[in-house]
């Protein structure tokens, strides 16, 4: 050592150790503790897996719901179209339809062509319908006691007429005020102006409805001329392409929207469904029931019989009216529709919440509990680890480690464990969620698999794991950093 002439000992500030170096130091030490700390990691894995299952399930379920709803819409397309063209809707139906049209301009375009109203008029009308539906929803979702107080026994449009009465309005406002849990969907002013304009609105709607009814009547006359005694559906199936196209053009000229693609789709679907209906009717006749029993030596319900359509004996029984391909199509359709119906039922039960939140309140509560357990477990394990390593920590302090360095070491270690545990938990959760949904819903899980959303869930879950672990490490790390270097002098 050189002898210097200046001060022997000077005091300065310790050099700041870069994050990278701290991380490397931490990781070097972790290798030896990894096995022992696997218990801590198990806790993280379980909590993260649980959270991941919650998230992924919800995401998959909403995706499948939407897919199923889409498929249902396709299945219902023919019946909806036929009803739309052949039946004049009621005032409330019109109102609902126009309310939806605010987001769907094709409905408005059709309405313009059919009724002859200008675009501006239709748009204004649509907004009013939307308001009407919002207020109606507000009143119908209210609890019955409060509703009775506010609007007596009025329902539907009567509500607005009732509220328009001068004495009732101020009364209504004063009764509404103390009801803290109820909030008007719009300003009071908006409701008042809506009420003021309600009579005019009703007149407009009546005019709209009448015009529509006229057009429906006109279409009916046109169609009757072509279709005769059959039903429209049967005629569409039996007639030629050209005839159907010609009819379509006439429909459009009256104002209703019906493009080529839609017509083709509808006709295809009708073919299969009408064939199915006819076969079902045939199989129900006493003659057929007897024949079935003679051929198969057993009697089963209609649903079961339908599943054996492609059996050659059945083809023969049906008098070879239908080709094998047609029967295969019908069978496929029957199976598909049954599966879809099951899914629809399930979707109804577990339905998407209108508020659009990914997870419901109860599930969040469960997830929070899982996290709490995780944090407590990690804190406990880390405190034990700090206690065991007191010599090491104190020695390091004697060698010049700052409090901050020690703190960072422990927090980084916890973070790393959170990362590992989070990754493992995420994978476990993903697998469990997919399996669960496969069992519950079947293949639609894969057809409608929302890859992007699941990816986001995965990242969220892993980050949760890391954050949890680091949060849990705060107290133990702080207590480790406060350890006195004197402890290193202790002789065990």
């Amino acid at each position, binding site marked *: 050592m050189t002898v210097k002439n200046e001060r022997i000992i000077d005091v300065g500030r310790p050099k700041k150790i870069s994050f990278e170096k701290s991380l490397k130091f931490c990781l070097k030490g972790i290798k030896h503790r990894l096995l022992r700390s696997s218990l801590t990691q198990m806790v993280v894995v379980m909590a993260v897996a649980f959270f991941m299952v919650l998230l992924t399930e919800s995401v998959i379920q909403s995706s499948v719901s939407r897919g199923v709803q889409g498929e249902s819409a396709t299945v219902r397309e023919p019946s909806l179209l036929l009803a739309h063209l052949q039946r004049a809707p009621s005032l409330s139906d019109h109102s609902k339809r126009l309310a939806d049209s605010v987001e769907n301009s094709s409905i408005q375009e059709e309405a313009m062509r059919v009724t002859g109203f200008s675009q501006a008029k239709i748009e204004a009308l649509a907004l009013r319908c939307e308001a009407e539906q919002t207020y109606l929803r507000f009143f119908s979702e209210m609890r019955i006691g409060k509703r009775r107080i506010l609007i007596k026994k009025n329902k539907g449009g009567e509500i607005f007429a009732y509220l328009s009465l001068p004495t009732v309005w101020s009364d209504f406002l004063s009764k509404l005020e103390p009801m803290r849990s109820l909030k008007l969907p719009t300003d009071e002013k908006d409701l008042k102006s809506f009420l003021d304009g309600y009579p005019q609105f009703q007149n407009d709607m009546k005019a709209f409805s009448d015009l529509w009814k006229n057009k429906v009547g006109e279409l009916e006359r046109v169609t009757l001329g072509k279709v005769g005694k059959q039903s429209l559906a049967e005629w569409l199936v039996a007639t030629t392409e050209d005839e159907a196209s010609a009819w379509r053009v006439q429909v459009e000229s009256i104002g209703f929207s019906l493009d080529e693609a839609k017509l083709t789709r509808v006709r295809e679907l009708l073919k299969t469904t009408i064939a199915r209906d006819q076969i079902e009717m045939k199989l129900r006749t006493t003659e057929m029931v007897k024949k079935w029993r003679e051929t198969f030596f057993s009697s089963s319900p209609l649903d079961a019989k339908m599943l054996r359509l492609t059996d050659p004996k059945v083809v023969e029984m049906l008098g070879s009216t239908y080709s094998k391909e047609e029967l295969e199509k019908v069978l496929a359709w029957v199976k598909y529709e049954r599966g879809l119906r099951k899914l629809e039922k399930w979707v109804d039960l577990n339905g998407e919440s209108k508020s659009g939140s990914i997870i419901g309140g109860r599930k969040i509560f469960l997830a929070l509990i899982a996290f709490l357990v995780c944090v407590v477990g990690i804190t406990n394990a880390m405190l034990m680890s700090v206690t065991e390593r007191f010599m090491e920590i104190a020695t390091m302090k004697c060698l010049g480690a700052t*409090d901050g360095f020690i703190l960072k070491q422990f927090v980084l270690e916890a973070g790393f464990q959170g990362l590992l545990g989070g990754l493992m938990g995420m994978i476990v959760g993903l697998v469990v969620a997919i399996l669960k949904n496969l069992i519950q819903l079947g293949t639609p899980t894969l057809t409608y698999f929302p890859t992007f959303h699941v990816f986001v869930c995965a990242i969220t879950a892993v980050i949760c794991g890391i954050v949890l672990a680091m949060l849990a490490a705060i107290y133990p790390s702080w207590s480790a950093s406060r350890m006195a270097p004197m402890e290193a002098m202790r002789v065990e």
Partner: protein
Amino acid sequence: MPYDPVEYAKGREIVVRASGVKKEYTRGSETVHALRGIDLEVYRGEYICVMGPSGSGKSTFFNMIGGLDTPTSGRVFMDEVDMAQLNAEELAYLRCRKIGYVFQAYNLNSTMRALDNVTLPMTFAGVHADECRERGMKQLERVGLSDRWSHRPKQMSGGQQQRVAIARSLINEPSILLCDEPTANLDIKTGKEIHQLLYNLNKDDGATIICATHDYDMLEVCDRIIWIEDGSIGRIELSEDMTIEKSSLGGEK
């Protein structure tokens, strides 16, 4: 000749000065006086032994000098800087670069190799990795363990571990070396080797060494011996004034 503080202090610089250091612990109504007012100067290039029976306050005083503990009253000055005035970061700096510690239980990190253990203080001093390795190897050579640089503490004997610890304490070229019973866990022969090593460090490199010890073999190699009795300094002696009688233990020389 007997110890004369004034004579002894001529031509020497003071490294550590304890002035009126008292330490009391209160447990409820009882007060334990660990140190009852100690005044001491430690000079540059000295080799001091602090000796005393258990419970005499030897360890407490030792901690005071090393900046590990603060006195209840009185001051400890390290090169005219009052240790009690320093904040945690400055103390960390001191411990890293100016004070070296050698512990009774070696206190090596069992997961790191010898070289890594030795260069650990350099990490805290922010030294680059290559320089770390270089200086680390040099230090290991100095203590005679250059061929064991990649071994873990478990693979070394007690004496070798202590030598690694000494190398570690010297790595940042500190001004003082504090040794807390460095040979207590070692056998007599290895203990002598350690004493020899410390002696060489003191004489060749001019390291100021302060040892707290029970081991009478240390008395030969040090300069001054401070006896602590019941919380205050009993007497201070020069080692040349002491005659030590020992008998050898069967077979050892």
